[in-house]
């Protein structure tokens, strides 16, 4: 049995330690906001936060997160930071098909948690592991910049 903190709650799974975290989240906990885009850690659609760091859950074995803290979009959407990001993404028109969006939002939060007033270059670097085919990224970059300005004190 593997125990970990998921979106603030202590949970456990009996899955084999080699099972992908992505599958545990989606199948056992029905947290389908975490998406599978490529299955090899390239696209970032499956991004979650593990102890605050952005991680691709499709190449993370559940055994490796024993005792750690996992936050998915379902947990993060309850926060004040999410509200700021959600508004900023709307204002900048940063959401199209939406498949990369939960991962992008978490990538933005991971960046802003470490650097609350990032440069444009910082933002591009921070989301460079999250592929988006719809937007061309610039409107997402703008959204994160707006959030960094609007979210004073939250990060």
């Amino acid at each position, binding site marked *: 049995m593997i125990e970990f903190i998921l979106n603030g709650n202590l949970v456990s799974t009996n899955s084999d330690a080699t099972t992908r975290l992505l599958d545990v989240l*989606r199948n056992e906990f029905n*947290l*389908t*906001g*975490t*998406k*599978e*885009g*490529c*299955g*090899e850690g*390239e*696209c970032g*659609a499956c991004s979650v936060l593990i102890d605050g760091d952005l991680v691709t859950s499709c190449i993370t074995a559940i055994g490796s997160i024993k005792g750690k803290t996992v936050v*998915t*979009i*379902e947990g993060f*959407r309850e926060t004040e930071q*999410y509200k700021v*990001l*959600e508004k900023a*993404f*709307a204002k*900048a*028109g940063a*959401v*199209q*098909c*939406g*498949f*990369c*969006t*939960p991962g992008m*939002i978490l990538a933005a939060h991971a960046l802003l948690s470490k650097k609350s007033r990032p440069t444009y270059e910082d*933002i*591009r*670097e921070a*989301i*460079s*592991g*999250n*592929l*988006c*085919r*719809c*937007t*061309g*990224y*610039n*409107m*997402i*970059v703008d959204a994160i910049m707006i959030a960094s300005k609007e979210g004073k004190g939250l990060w």
Partner: protein
Amino acid sequence: MKDISISVKKKDHEIKTSGRAIYVADMKFEGMFYAKVIRSTIAKGKIKEISLPNIPDNYYIIDAKDIPGKNALKIVESEQPIFSEGNIEYMGEAIMMIVGPDKRKIEELSEKIKITYEEEEPVFTIEEAYEKLVSYHYEKGDYKKAFQNADEILEETFITGYQEQAYIEPQGVIGIYENNKITIYGSMQCPYYVKEAVMLTMGMDDKHVQVIQNVTGGGFGGKEDYPSMIGCQVAVAAKKVKRPVALILDRKEDMLVTPKRHPARLKYRVALNNKKEITAIEADIRTNAGAYLGLSGVVLQRALIAAIGVYKIENLYVSGAAMKTNTVPNGAYRGFGAPQTFFAIEMLMNHIGEKLGLNPLEFKKKYIAKKGDTTATNGKYHYHVPLDEMIDKAEKISGYSKKYKKYSKPQTGRYRRGIGMSLFLHGCGFTGSAERDYIKSIAKLVKNEDDTVEIFVSNTDMGQGLHTTFSKIVANTLGIPLEKVYINNPDTDKVPNSGPTVASRSIMIVGKLLERAAKKMKEQWKPHEPLTIIEHYKHIDLIPWDIEKFQGDAYPAYSYGLNVVEVEVDMLLATTKLLGVWGIFDVGKAIDKNIIMGQLQGGMLQGIGYASMEKMENKNGQIYQANMTDYMIPTAKDTIPFNIELIDNPYEGGPFGAKGAGELPLVGVAPAYVAAVENAINKNITEIPLTPEKLMEKL
């Protein structure tokens, strides 16, 4: 009423951002089975023998024998089997499917299936190919005489590569069979295409097939025809096993077997008179269709119609063929044949201009078509062509001509700069009279007692914002708040067939139907009384399109674009850095500024990828770059802020003056990018993608 272009929060913004949106892979049904397709491992031949392991209880093999109707995929023609009956035409062709409750067990079983083949000699490339799946040609004026009288004849051949749509959500469907009725859920652009295909394969009538679109994670053309294939496969399985059956492709399988942009070879000949003016052009365009016709014929039509780009040339001979090869069938990708041709014609015009010692733009200006001019196919530019003002605007914001002159002087050193410009257009809607003859769109508006209004159409939102733009058209026409207008993902049991979500047609054609329906609703509006308005497509009579002769108005209207790209080339490493990217577009009227900007920004970056880094090869029948590591699409670090401006040029045939915008931004980036690199290195380039390896060969 506020200007419709002012951006609003998208209707689906919150569900998508919060992770609540349900994509097909997020759906679960009681007792649902999973499916895996067993595919051919050879490119051409016959199946000799299939040896199956013991299939445990609750696991099933589904193959051609299980198909109740016709073993044929309905697209344009129905030439492609759903499951092979012994003949193999490409590597990855579906032979059978294993269905059961546990994915790992399915994998295990699939590895034990042994198939032996009698191999035949395959062909892979346009050069090797000998069979034309479809061909067209047309002429204008007296091209023969023009070539006979030519002072000089120039020839150039252009090569363009594959491009993978690379939507971030892989393709997937779920099929359910209950009470002699099939229901298909899935990620798709065209629910009625899937429905018609399933009806044919299942031998079922209209009332017994239902298709429901899930939230769709990007399409770009890639989800135009292939959802019909997997929709039929799960329909057959669901009927046999009497359980819901899910087929969700993983990335590798998606990249190996779904249709891509056609690789193409475009040969041009140009006749110049003694004043060094173009008197005639001859073009031959060959595309690699893959193993089956699919959409290749209609893609080829668009490629041929675009043969002379935005220019007016009096004498023409244009021919083209979609060549059969034993490779994965190619299909629709944003631009639909036009990006290949615009790369060729724009580079050709640049090269001729430069050969004559001119700034390519100055050379092109003499040939730009104007309102009233005839098109390549003897149709007419019925409306204002705003390219002149677009050029003026581009000069102002990008400094193109000044920079071109500066960079054209001999450059030395490791880093050299260049700038390129392209001019292009995109015909909006289906080619010719297909809207009138085949699609016959119907849209429905329903007013409820509480004075909310619901939109019923079959067009899908796959990220391009259609739910929001359609709702804005209806709300603004009725003069009611946007919150009072609803739209859901289409369910063919509920929505009329307003046609597929393709060809830059949704806003211009279906949006117009909704505008007309809303006007009627407004006239008949009585508070708190229900009201339904059904609106049918009305054809705008232009010069009739004759597909046999390839003559007439190919499209009712065109959207126009201009791109400028400025680059710095590292002569040592053969890498390029973007210094500036500009786009000037005429999409009639923007229904929502943010949504249009999203389309333009996203489309342009796909164009930069197409031009510079997205390399896909077919080696011995197999797609070589079949994952996101090997097939690289641009990341946030590969791009820079784009400078985009819109030209106001409302079109009377579109709602609020809007024309098509979805495909346009991808059409012209590649020639602007490559022209910029040429300008920096002072060498001609005729092939894309221009990867660092290719560029290194040039340096």
